[in-house]
């Protein structure tokens, strides 16, 4: 059974306005690394806020771990299963000491204090921030603050981690810190990761990419399939990563045999093989 099931979801922020989401259906499997991409205003963040019941459907249904998000009795339970990290690192930190911040979630869940201690330590280790346990959050970099926000979620032992443009305000180094941690949590801890982003290079290692356009799912598939349709991506206000753009150009010029590689290293390899094949090196 899917861990999140979205069924014919439509959502309006205002009664009269244009729907932010219309007739979206999506099944997310346990253990999946899913990326959701889309232009500004495509509805991707609105969709993300349905995954933990922050928003509930105007029509249609969303089930998280089998629970209907529209049923208020499920609200707390759902939030326990789904950890969310948002865009602005400065808006998510509530205390003045890192480890207190990480403990905030489990404290509110009524977890016994020795168990909290254990969870906080584990969470800080998984995001590589153990040595900052006693630090003041405002002295940390953006990437470090986002890692603390993720640790705060992990301490609640969620099954699902939703990163809602969590890398948008970070520099390349901070972005890499967060994507590396997301991959690790997915591979090693089996946490289902849903990553909402505008950076196309961050989705190359997702299991599946969902492309949103004007409140609808435009198309989806694994990264190789999605990036092979550059015209469709451009039509959705997106683009392919630069390495894929180079790949496409070379293929188009018959300077490279067709390949569906999307990773920069893989593409470099393919180009190198072409040099070997043509006897240049």
């Amino acid at each position, binding site marked *: 059974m899917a861990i999140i099931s979205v069924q014919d979801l439509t959502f309006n922020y205002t009664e009269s306005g244009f729907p932010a989401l219309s007739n979206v259906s999506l099944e997310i499997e346990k253990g999946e690394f899913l990326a959701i991409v*889309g*232009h*500004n*205003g*495509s509805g991707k963040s609105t969709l993300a806020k349905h995954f933990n019941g922050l928003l509930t459907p105007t029509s249609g249904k969303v089930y998280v771990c089998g629970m209907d998000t529209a049923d208020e009795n499920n609200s707390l339970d759902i939030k326990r299963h789904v950890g969310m990290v948002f*865009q602005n690192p400065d808006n998510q930190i509530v205390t003045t000491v890192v480890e207190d911040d990480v403990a905030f979630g489990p404290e509110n869940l009524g977890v016994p204090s020795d168990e909290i201690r254990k969870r906080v330590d584990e969470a800080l280790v998984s995001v590589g921030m153990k040595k900052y346990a006693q630090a003041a959050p405002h*002295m940390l*970099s*953006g*990437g470090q603050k986002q890692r603390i926000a993720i640790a705060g979620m992990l301490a609640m032992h969620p099954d699902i981690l939703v990163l809602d443009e969590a890398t*948008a*305000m*970070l*520099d*390349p*180094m*901070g972005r890499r810190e967060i994507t590396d941690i997301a991959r690790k949590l997915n591979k090693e801890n089996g946490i289902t990761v849903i990553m909402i982003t*505008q950076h*196309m290079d961050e989705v190359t290692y997702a299991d599946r990419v969902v492309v949103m356009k004007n409140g609808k799912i435009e198309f989806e598939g694994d990264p190789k399939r999605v990036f092979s349709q550059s015209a469709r991506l451009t039509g959705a*206000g*997106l*683009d392919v*990563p*630069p*390495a894929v*753009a*180079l790949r496409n*150009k*070379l293929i188009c*010029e*018959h*300077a*490279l045999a067709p390949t569906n590689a999307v990773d*920069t*290293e893989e*593409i*470099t390899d393919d*180009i*190198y093989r*072409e*040099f070997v094949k*043509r*006897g*240049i*090196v």
Partner: protein
Amino acid sequence: MAIEMKNVCYTYMDDSAFSHAALKDICLTVNENEFVALIGHTGSGKSTLISHMNGLMQPQSGKVTVDGLDMSDKLKRKEGRTRVGMVFQYPEYQLFEETVKKDIAFGPHNMGLSDEECDERVREAMELVGLSYEKFADKSPFDLSGGERRRAALAGIIAMRPKYLVLDEPMAGLDPMGRRRILDTVISLRSALHCAVVMVSHSMDDVARIAERVVVMHEGSIVMDGAVSEVFTHTEKLREIGLEIPTAARIADGLRMRGVDVPKGICTIEALSEYLTGRLKKC
């Protein structure tokens, strides 16, 4: 004529336990008409540096002049400031007027221009950033989309016709289409206004594509300064200080490591694609 920074130093919370030297003996000249990209990771001093360019911050030691105007002098600073247009990160959060038109006219009004002149400036600026005057002038800035709001904020600076346009991460937070549009706007602004551009950016691919000169900051100092193709040749050094390399330079590096002799200085996808096509198609 230029923005000149001579031996500029600035330390935050000096004399305290949190004292942090953000700028250490900075010497930098930005010439008229140049397109300079300022790169460096978070905390390297980029924003502190550009805040000195229009006198928003005053150096604790050293000197900043704009076209010879000493920015530490209150009167001269006022004049200098009209020549250096600053667009901060997420400038759309600074829109405050009732209408787009009024917001854009705020700067020119403060410069003492007449209503007619202001209106002319507003029209010109809106056209330059690609916002239709008829459609947007009387709208509330809050009814605009994120990308449109950013354009409106940019127009507010353009309306002062700066000689030097300083942009702090103008593409941050925009989707790929929005990023491309802002970049194209910056390129066309520069040729229309004949102004110099100083752009802080984390996107090395964009920097490689549109800048002429790159200044690299690290821990409050300028560690590299040169032409784009020159700076991006030093991939090892850039990696050492934790910076990204343009994708094209990374692929070219990878090919070199595998034994293909790609010439130095290729750092855009266009140039690399042209080169590779030429090499591969000969055979």
